[in-house]
């Protein structure tokens, strides 16, 4: 027993020492690269984070890979303002505390600009840190309003209230008589956020919502009860403000139950056609508001999808696209600010804070500019496209 304890204590001491040394090593190496400023060693250190393990890993991996792909392309094309990007990333396990750990670790590695996080709660937690450090933060997919409450935080994706309101609006113009049921994930901020605004907006617009049912991350295996309720309530349109993986389950289960209403989703629904072995005929007629379509035929998207598939062996979804656009937005803003990596983290942040409002990105998720008015500071200005899935592909149904 005693020996065991001693071993453990020794291990603890060792780990602590390694931790500190690693820290010192990290800071000294970044110091070295700063000293080597005169040589061509100077780089932009851009960090990205998302859940790479655990339940939400599918989203984080896409974000981290999308940003990596953009960084690689930018480097091949000569970098930003003549300097290469050193791209780093960390695993936040979709957890607030781990997100801060990942962020701090990347700071030790000399991170100057933070492109993250992937999910909402970690983004909000890290936003408090970036505010303290005055580090520029651009979240590819953190969608709650709290994510961009600080003026150093910007977002690439739409925010939740915007999506909820837009969905209600779209449904009320195109299907004013629809009998609507909602199934949402009450354990994620994303889904609950959209649902809350949708519900309020639908009431304003006089939409007929007959059932609103929730599930949680722990109960998403089986959704038959929620589908049954929608069916019993006679809903002919089911609103699904959830991510594509659970949506695939709902579509499959509804089909098994012989229930075929119209389904309507938000940007989280994108990716459903890429789910391995998913019977895409089930998604026939599914409508969603999305800024990105992996099967779009413009050169940018085609190349992105091709390169992404080559590098990571899967079709990217909107998470990857948002991160890719985010990296290019940082590039554009840095070029607009005309600064070099010699500037301090805080100076870069200050410069980017103004430059973000000057840029326009022709990205995968459309033409994006950033709103400068106090009300919507840091929000992207882009329009989600309404698409319908026909013959296994997105078809625009925008007027």
């Amino acid at each position, binding site marked *: 027993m005693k020996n065991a304890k001693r*071993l453990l204590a020794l291990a603890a001491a060792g780990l602590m020492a390694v931790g500190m040394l690693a820290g010192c090593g990290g800071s000294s190496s970044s110091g070295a690269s700063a000293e080597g400023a005169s040589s061509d060693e100077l780089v932009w250190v851009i960090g990205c984070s998302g859940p790479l393990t*655990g339940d939400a890993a599918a989203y984080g991996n896409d974000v981290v890979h999308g940003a990596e792909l953009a960084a690689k392309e930018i480097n091949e094309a000569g970098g930003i303002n003549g300097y290469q990007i050193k791209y780093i990333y960390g695993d936040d396990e979709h957890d607030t505390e781990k997100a*801060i750990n990942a962020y701090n670790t990347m700071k030790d590695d000399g991170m100057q600009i933070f492109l993250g996080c992937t999910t909402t709660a970690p983004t909000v937690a890290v936003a408090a840190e970036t505010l303290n450090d005055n580090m520029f933060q651009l979240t590819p997919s953190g969608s709650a309003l709290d994510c961009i409450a600080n003026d150093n935080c910007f977002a690439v994706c739409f925010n939740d209230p915007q999506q909820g309101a837009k969905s209600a609006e779209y449904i009320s113009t195109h299907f004013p008589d629809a009998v609507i049921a909602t199934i949402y994930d009450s354990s994620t901020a994303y889904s609950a956020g959209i*649902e809350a605004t949708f519900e309020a907006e639908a009431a304003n617009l006089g939409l007929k919502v007959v059932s609103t049912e929730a599930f949680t991350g722990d109960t998403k295996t089986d959704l038959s009860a929620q589908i049954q309720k929608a069916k019993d309530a006679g809903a002919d349109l089911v609103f699904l403000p959830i991510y594509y993986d659970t949506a695939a389950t709902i579509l499959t289960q509804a089909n098994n139950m012989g229930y075929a209403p119209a389904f309507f989703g938000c940007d989280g629904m994108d990716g459903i056609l890429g789910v391995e072995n998913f019977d895409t005929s089930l998604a026939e007629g599914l409508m969603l508001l999305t800024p990105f379509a992996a099967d779009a035929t413009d050169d940018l998207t085609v190349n992105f999808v091709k390169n992404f598939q080559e590098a990571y062996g899967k079709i990217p979804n909107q998470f990857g696209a948002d991160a890719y656009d985010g990296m290019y937005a940082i590039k554009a803003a840095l070029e607009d600010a005309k600064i070099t990596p010699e500037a301090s983290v805080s100076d870069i942040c200050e410069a980017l804070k103004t430059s973000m409002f000057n840029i326009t990105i022709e990205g995968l998720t459309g033409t994006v500019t950033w709103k400068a008015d106090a009300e919507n500071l840091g929000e992207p200005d882009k329009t989600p496209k309404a698409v319908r899935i026909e013959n296994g592909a997105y078809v625009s149904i925008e007027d």
Partner: protein
Amino acid sequence: MGRIKTYFSTMDRTSRDDFITYGGLLVVFIVMQGLLSAGMLSNQMRGLLVPLCVYAIMAIALNLVVGTLGELSIGHAGFMCVGAFSSAFFSKINPDMPDLPRFIIAIIIGGVVAGIFGFLIGIPVLRLNGDYLAIVTLAFGEIIKNIINALYVGVDEKGYHFSLSSVNDMGMDPLNGNIIINGPQGVTGTPRSATFAISMVVLFISLIVILNLTHSRDGRAIMAVRDNYIAAESVGINITRYKLTAFTISAVISGFAGALYAHNLATLVATPARFGYNMSIMFLVFVVLGGIGSTRGAIVASVVLTLIPELLRPIQSYRMLIYAIVLIVIMLVNWSPKSRAFMETHSLKRFLFKKGGKEDK
């Protein structure tokens, strides 16, 4: 110097043991605080200081139940969760109070609320034994997490509004209302009052409470219940009372940890991974790896197991896999009778002093 040495050697075993625990912790505190003030810690290490204290507190709190009382609880994250949310709630509704007193009151509130939950849950639960008790604590932890995830609390000029289903259900004034607990989005904007020093103070207080309890008459009664409850009952020990005492104190301390946790981050959410059974199990791992019943061991194990995945960050996606392997290997090395025997015969002490392998017990 010589006198100190004599004093030290004349101390009885438990006092010496406690002395090492307190002293060791104090040294660690002074060293880390010194490094922190001198700015010599890496960002990563600096960010980990408060969480390490939180986990150490959770480890000793759970150790009181698992090690000293001998009952298996896999729901302690629930008490931490209650402490975290109640303290964050207090801090959110008192934005104008000065930071330190507010934080101290918040910690106390966290502890008290968690303690009340511990007491109420303890009354029915502690009638059960063994694995059944474990599953019921797990169930309570999951219930707490599930309810907090569905809990909406807001305040406007008409007073407080509650709902267990959605924001709109609260019937709040949409313009002037202030949502405090927002379902799955939790509590956002809690003041970040938790510092390393305060966390260390809370850890010390928890440690003093627990060590004093264990060495007191009550503590011996609790251990008697653990070792043989039938015998304990036959000598007139009120089993339920002592079980409940230990369980409630453990819940209070978990509530402290929760309050520290809540005030360390800008946003507090109860996701399935955070505050669910996964987290309770993690605390159990600390206790078992620390040697079940050893308070010092629990603290050390919590530090080791929190640091491993952080220090493995450079290997990215293989990180958690390696962590799992390390966990299995440490368990096998520390607990298997064979490796125990091997360590006894090959111990460093024996090698150095050429004495018998016997420990000075």
